[in-house]
């Protein structure tokens, strides 16, 4: 095997296919077992499902905790919005906490539009009296023909336990409000927050709206303990962050409007800060960007 003449000794370098998180297993026995996550088969990182199982397969099993998935929007933000909703719906089903930021819709509106999960049919053993009471006459009739099955427990649909990784959704229906209510969601709706931008700190290359979003996100992460600030008594959970349409004009960023934007690096600086925050907390982020509107070539969007 040829090697470069001035090779620096035994070639020993390594490469991880994706960015790792700041969380590692301390010992083999203490596994972080958070519902809705599992270790990746490729490199042992903790991964979560994006909500779309085929996308999970394409990106190597799932989204690693502590990383960011950037989606470039299609022309009318139809499929990218759908992907974001799948991501959030998966969070609801798995019991993760949600953080939704949008300049266009209030987070409650977004939550109401989540697709309904296709529920498993879980057989619940009911007593014979209950069965007799709850059966309507038609099914009684049917049981006369299929009498062999009469003794079997009545099947009830219930929310699939979150031990499964990746769920399927029925886009034609929206999620049950009860299931949505059970999820903890933090929202950032820009029109509500723009009036609250008080601090005149010079934000450098980042605009005020991104700065307020970053601060708000940091505050939520710290308060809810996703960065480990809360002691171990509280069971650990993942925060799913969905940021809708960053870089669009609604966020006050003229990146998509002009060829020479005034804050040309605002979005990339924000993403850099977001990456720093993700690496130090148990969270996963999906960001959609209307890149088809960006005229200037933005350098090195990581």
């Amino acid at each position: 095997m040829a090697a470069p003449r001035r090779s620096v000794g035994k070639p020993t370098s390594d490469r991880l296919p994706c960015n790792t998180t700041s969380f590692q297993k301390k010992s083999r026995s203490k596994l972080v077992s958070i519902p809705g996550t599992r270790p990746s088969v490729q490199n042992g990182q903790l991964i979560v499902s994006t909500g779309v199982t085929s996308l999970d397969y394409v990106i190597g099993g799932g989204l690693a905790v502590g990383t960011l998935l950037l989606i470039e929007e299609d022309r009318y933000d139809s499929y990218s919005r759908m992907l974001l909703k799948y991501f959030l719906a998966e969070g609801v089903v798995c019991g993760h906490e949600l953080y939704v930021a949008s300049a266009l819709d209030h987070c409650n509106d977004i939550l109401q539009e989540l697709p309904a999960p296709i529920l498993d049919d879980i057989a619940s053993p009911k007593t014979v009296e209950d069965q007799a009471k709850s059966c309507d006459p038609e099914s009684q009739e049917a049981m006369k023909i299929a009498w062999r099955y009469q003794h079997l427990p009545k099947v009830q649909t219930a929310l699939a336990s979150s031990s499964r990784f990746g769920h399927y959704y029925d886009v034609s229906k929206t999620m049950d409000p009860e299931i949505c209510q059970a999820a903890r969601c933090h929202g950032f709706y820009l029109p509500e927050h723009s009036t609250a931008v008080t601090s005149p700190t010079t934000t450098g290359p980042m605009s005020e709206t991104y700065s307020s979003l970053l601060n708000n996100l940091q505050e939520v992460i710290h308060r809810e303990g996703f960065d480990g600030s809360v002691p171990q008594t509280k069971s650990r959970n993942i925060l799913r962050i969905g940021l809708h349409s960053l870089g669009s004009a609604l966020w006050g960023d003229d990146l998509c409007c002009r060829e020479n934007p005034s804050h040309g690096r605002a979005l990339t600086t924000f993403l850099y800060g977001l990456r720093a925050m993700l690496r130090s907390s148990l969270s996963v982020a999906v960001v959609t960007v209307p890149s088809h509107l960006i005229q200037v070539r933005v350098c090195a969007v990581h």
Partner: protein
Amino acid sequence: MRGEFILVSDKHTDASFLIHHFLSFYLRAGCKVCFLGLVQSFSHYSAISQRLGVSLTQAREKGQLVFLEGLKESLGVLLQGEASKGTRAVDFLRDPSSGLRGLYDFVRDNVRGGGGGEEWGPPVLLVDDLSVVLSLGVSVGAALDFSHYCRATVCSKLQGSMVMLVRCEEEEEEEESDEGSERLLRGLIHQCSLTLQVQGLPTGYCRDIHGQVEVCWRGQCDGQQTQKKLFQYKVHDKGASFFARGTSSAVL
């Protein structure tokens, strides 16, 4: 390998495996290493170096490794603005037009062998990666100035080595490539003595060959010819193996 400036660049692929390699190599060789980790957390490098047999935490405690956690320091600046009390190394975030002076000061202060304690080998500066400052608003000229100053201090004055990673994007065939990673790369190629350009295979994805590396030794001022060699590589769990084109074990 003294007084060398090694430039690692990649295009459409990830050459950070070379950075991990150099980091563990120089630490094992007993050099004093100053690492500017601008794009990943310390635990990321630590986890990978663990697999390569080097403990970054121990090296840091002993004083052999000085690690700048770019992400963590930057977050402090981005969240609190002027009020933050972080290191001056990431001052370029507060004011991108001021350039990388703060970062250079950090390097200069930390790359000398510390007084007292053990004596380490020649100093080494590792930067991963330099092109990220371009997306944070720093100009190409400022980045080139930074690398020039670092080279003058680390390579010429202290006879140490420097390894920098620069990542490039797809460049359309435009006349004016004013967005800088390509320009930064060209400027740095002129400054360095050894270039490792990592790319994917031109023919597409292959499971056994992860890409190719073009190694280019630049002629020094005494008229040596620049030599170029092309190798292919495969990244394993504990390292990378290099081989001549067409001699991959999968093919032979």
